[in-house]
């Protein structure tokens, strides 16, 4: 059995930052493995540990600078990695879910996985739509926002919990092959061991252009164009207490006493 896990490097922005045109100035940005993808990788590695003959392959859209982030997934137990990049993707600007899914579907077509796991969303652009778009392109079944997964390989069914709003979960049986978008909390992602980190260095990380996976670069055009980026105006009218921690704590204590909060 083969599991394909989509893995993305996301940008985390510092507390204080400056915007430079349509992007946040590089100085205030740190690269990280997308939080939701960490849970997806862990889910895949746990399936691999529970069954014989399971291969876990990661797929990433991103330039070579993302290799270090991808190695994190390899260090946590993925077997090999695929990264797709191309000038055409660089030029496309804002990649919409459809464009991403198109690329990932081409990777999946080559790999022919039995199960695809993605994160629910990415922490930076937060579209939350790539996984289900990918499923539909692959004509696979899917489940979004999965926070519990029980695989019955013989029956070909994934019994999942989908986490709805308000503390309610939906229990659903999904035919596999399927794409599941994985929610945080489904498991407890492991830290990479030193051994894992060492092994990751020698695992395969294949780089493909669009042509390599059978896509025409001319067909890559995102219909979404980012036209501005700005810090949202705060509508907030918070009274901010100023001073040393002792001073601000005193003010807050007084406020709380006023509101009738005391032991």
């Amino acid at each position, binding site marked *: 059995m083969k599991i394909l896990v989509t893995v993305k490097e996301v940008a985390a*922005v510092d507390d204080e930052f400056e915007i430079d045109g349509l992007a*946040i100035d590089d100085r205030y940005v740190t690269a990280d493995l997308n939080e939701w993808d960490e849970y997806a990788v862990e889910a895949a590695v746990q399936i691999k540990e529970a069954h014989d003959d399971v291969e876990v392959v990661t797929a990433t859209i991103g330039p070579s600078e993302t290799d270090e982030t991808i190695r994190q997934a390899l260090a946590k137990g993925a077997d090999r990695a695929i990264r797709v990049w191309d000038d055409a993707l660089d030029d496309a600007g804002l990649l*919409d*879910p*459809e464009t991403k899914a198109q690329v990932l579907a081409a990777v999946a077509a080559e790999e022919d996985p039995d199960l695809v796991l993605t994160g629910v969303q990415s*922490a*930076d*652009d*937060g*579209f*939350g*739509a790539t*996984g*289900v*778009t990918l499923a*539909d392109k692959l004509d696979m*079944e*899917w489940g*979004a*926002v999965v926070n519990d997964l029980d695989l019955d390989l013989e029956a070909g069914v994934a*019994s999942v919990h989908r986490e*709805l*709003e*308000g*503390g*309610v*979960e*939906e*229990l*659903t049986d*999904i*035919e596999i092959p*399927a794409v599941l978008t994985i929610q945080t*909390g489904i498991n407890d992602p492991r830290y990479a061991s030193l051994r894992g980190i060492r092994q990751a260095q020698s695992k395969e990380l294949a780089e493909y252009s669009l042509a390599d996976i059978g896509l025409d670069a001319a067909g890559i055009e995102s*219909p*979404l*164009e*980012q*036209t501005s*980026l700005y*810090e*949202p105006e705060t*509508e*907030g*009218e*918070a*009274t*901010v*207490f100023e001073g040393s*921690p002792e001073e*601000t*704590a005193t003010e*807050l204590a007084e*406020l*709380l006493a006023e*509101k*009738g*909060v*005391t*032991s």
Partner: protein
Amino acid sequence: MSVLAIAEHRRGELRPVSLEQLAAGRDLADELGGELHTAVIGGDVEAFGAELNREGVDTVHTVDIGEEFNHDVYTQVVTQLATELDPTVLLMPNSVNGLDYAPAVANRLDRPLVTDVVDIDAEDGLTATRELYGSKAETTIDVHADQAAVTIRPAEWPTIEADGDAAIEAFDATIDESAVRSTVKGFEEVGGGDIDITDADVLVSVGRGIEEEENLDIIHDLAEALDATVSGSRPLIDNGWLAKDRQVGQSGKVVTPDVYIAIGISGAVQHVAGMKGSDTIVAINTDPNAPIFDIADYGIQDDLFEVVPALIEQFQ
């Protein structure tokens, strides 16, 4: 040049976003000079249809299939409806279920999809406003297409309350059963803990800023000093540091205490969804740009590891 908004319901009730979409949809329809359609699929469609008949709605389409949400059925029905009505903008909720069918529908209709939109405008082509990096930045996006699919963030638009005089029409969809490859087995309530955080008058709520499980001690100490209840943001619950039923937010509990003290919580939209109705909101956070300060009444922009112990001292 019309707009079609797909309603959402669960366990016999329309979800508020269904009526918020009508506000967003009416504005868009006015800008486009066209009609606003809405549709409800499954459940008691007659009752839902009557409920959706609000001011500004031209037609309510009812699709009498199934009881609860099933994404395979929704995907087929919405694709058929949108093909027939050919709306310029297809609106769907940016809810967990919305995200479980909207991308498939957009893909089948070959329309661009813009999700989690907080503002939208159709005056000069379609322009959507979205948030990035956990609400730290906002962006506008031009959609270069004649028709689009959009999911709107819940609680960003008002609900339309006034009754309308829409035409109510039943829509006959054809379901390809062989393409229904998922079965909803039921629902489960999360929780089972011994405390109901929705009952608390004062909540001391803690987020990822606490860093380590051991550090939670000061939060429990503070809660004890204030005779308050401890709740938290999602990462703490994911880590197993607090019980599941202590989670505040979209997928956790909605709380409305007299005082909500958010400590080391950034104020992500899914968290805010659960606590914005609190009477008095206090935020302690090192990041002066954290979105939690947008909804806080009082704030301390400082290190919780210094402020919380100082606060405990004040009460001892």
